[in-house]
């Protein structure tokens, strides 16, 4: 019962912040809304017994990635979004299609997932996770470090001023 209440509160916060992300006209307000979404999601991960993912979500997403976003917004001195006319196709087809996507996704997912009942989580889930990540999947894990390195170099090359 407590879990359901917690879920409902966190879900409401996440959805409200996501709506606020779309409705805000200033990018920094959108960024702060996104931070709220991520913190709410971290709470949901805790409810799902995924403590380590929750910690990573806070540290990497709400910490590192959002700092990057806020930093770029400040660097570029981004102001309020200017309004432009939507193209006619977007105006008439966009909203119904987005609503259709949302409803279709929710319907499929709810229907497909009905028979799934939650299994008990293993007691030392984080330990098993580390076994999986650093032993069984060690090679993909190392590959991600190469990916990060390439992204780092790429970002530097892109943002560098030409002499």
């Amino acid at each position, binding site marked *: 019962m407590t*879990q359901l209440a917690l*879920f409902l509160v966190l*879900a409401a916060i*996440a*959805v409200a912040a*996501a*709506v606020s*992300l*779309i409705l805000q006209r200033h*990018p920094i307000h*959108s*960024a702060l809304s*996104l931070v709220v979404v991520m913190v709410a*999601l971290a709470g*949901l991960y805790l409810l*799902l017994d*995924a403590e*380590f*993912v929750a910690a990573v*979500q806070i540290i990497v*997403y709400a910490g590192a*990635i959002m700092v*990057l*976003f806020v930093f*770029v*917004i400040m660097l*570029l001195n*981004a102001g309020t*979004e*200017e*309004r*432009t006319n939507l193209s006619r196709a*977007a105006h008439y087809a966009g909203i119904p299609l*987005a609503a259709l996507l949302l409803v279709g*996704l*929710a319907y499929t*997912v*709810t229907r497909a*997932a*009905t028979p*799934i009942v*939650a*299994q*008990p*989580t*293993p007691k030392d889930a984080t330990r098993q*996770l580390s076994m999986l*990540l650093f032993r069984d*999947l060690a090679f*993909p894990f190392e590959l*991600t470090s190469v*990916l*990060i390195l*390439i*992204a*780092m170099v*790429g970002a*530097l090359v*892109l*943002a560098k001023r030409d002499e």
Partner: protein
Amino acid sequence: MVPISYYLALSAVLFGLGVLGFVFKRNIITIFMAIELMLNAVNLAFVAFSRALGQLQGQVFVFFVIVVAAAEAAVGLGIVILIARNRQSLNVERVNLLKL
């Protein structure tokens, strides 16, 4: 115990909101944030399935998604800086060289 389908429905709603933001926003940084929102929604679905099936592979997937999201944010924001420098604007409507 909250039914897993609730989490999946929430994930779908967040993903839909991300798509809405991606389509309707004009500021390129906000569009990037909408993409991050979609990635987060997918992560929630992964963790929910991981819990439902009693397996941890879903959480491993989440780590890889987060890593790719970090790489994407770094490169993407580099491109944003480049666009802002060349076009003096963050409005995607003004990045229309490829438009007919």
